[in-house]
């Protein structure tokens, strides 16, 4: 019983120290920059955390109906690809690299739109960055229904500086 009491005390102490909310900033729309935050968001929600994702710059394309399903893998400026880097600029190379990567990913993970739906089902909130919308000419009617709201920097900072929140910028 003493052991159990100690365990529960440890848990309580830990609960006070641990963040219970995760805020993710997604600034890119390439396969390698989108899967990691979506994996963290779904896992965090499944682990009992509140999760908010702030989609800004190219990341906002994930909330745009026109580009929601069109995330690609960059063949230019991506020295990790298994080919001479200079070939990345050839026509069709981005499409080819994207197709190969998606084929490999399909064996293990849901697609990006499927993973976004899973995140929503787990209670993750999606926020569109208001200045990016102005910059890219995206209007509220252009956003996918999964979008919760349109917010700016102050709203984001309000969350990010709250006690108990962990923030990750991708």
């Amino acid at each position, binding site marked *: 019983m003493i052991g159990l009491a100690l365990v529960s005390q440890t*848990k309580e102490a*830990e609960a006070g120290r*641990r963040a219970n909310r995760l805020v993710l900033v997604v600034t890119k729309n390439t396969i390698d920059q989108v899967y990691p935050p979506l*994996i963290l968001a*779904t*896992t965090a929600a*499944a*682990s*009992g*955390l509140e999760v908010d994702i702030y989609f800004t710059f190219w990341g906002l394309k994930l909330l745009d109906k026109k580009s929601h399903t069109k995330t690609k893998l960059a063949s230019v400026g991506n020295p990790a690809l298994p080919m001479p880097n200079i070939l990345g600029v050839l026509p069709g190379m981005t499409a080819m690299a994207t197709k190969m990567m998606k084929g490999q990913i399909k064996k*293990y*993970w849901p697609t990006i739109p499927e993973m976004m739906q*899973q995140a929503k089902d787990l209670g993750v909130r999606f926020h569109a960055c208001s200045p990016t919308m102005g910059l890219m000419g995206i209007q509220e009617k252009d956003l996918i229904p999964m979008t919760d709201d349109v917010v700016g920097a102050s709203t984001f900072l309000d969350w990010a500086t709250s006690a108990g929140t962990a923030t990750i910028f991708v």
Partner: protein
Amino acid sequence: MLDTKGTLCPLPVLRTSQAIKQVKVGEVLEVLATDPGSKPDLTAWARMTGNELVDATEEPGNPKVYRFQIRRTK
């Protein structure tokens, strides 16, 4: 029993978090996985959610199979 063999992070944890809701509080869910990160990940998930990882064993093979017993606590 939940079989996540052949899947990678985060699917073993996501599926476990769904499957644990299908067992009664106090009951044990058995989870099978081949993801090499599944042991630390399910340990961390149990700690964060307050569920109890009762037992974790490894069965040799290629790939190695991890077997977890997780008690739903709430």
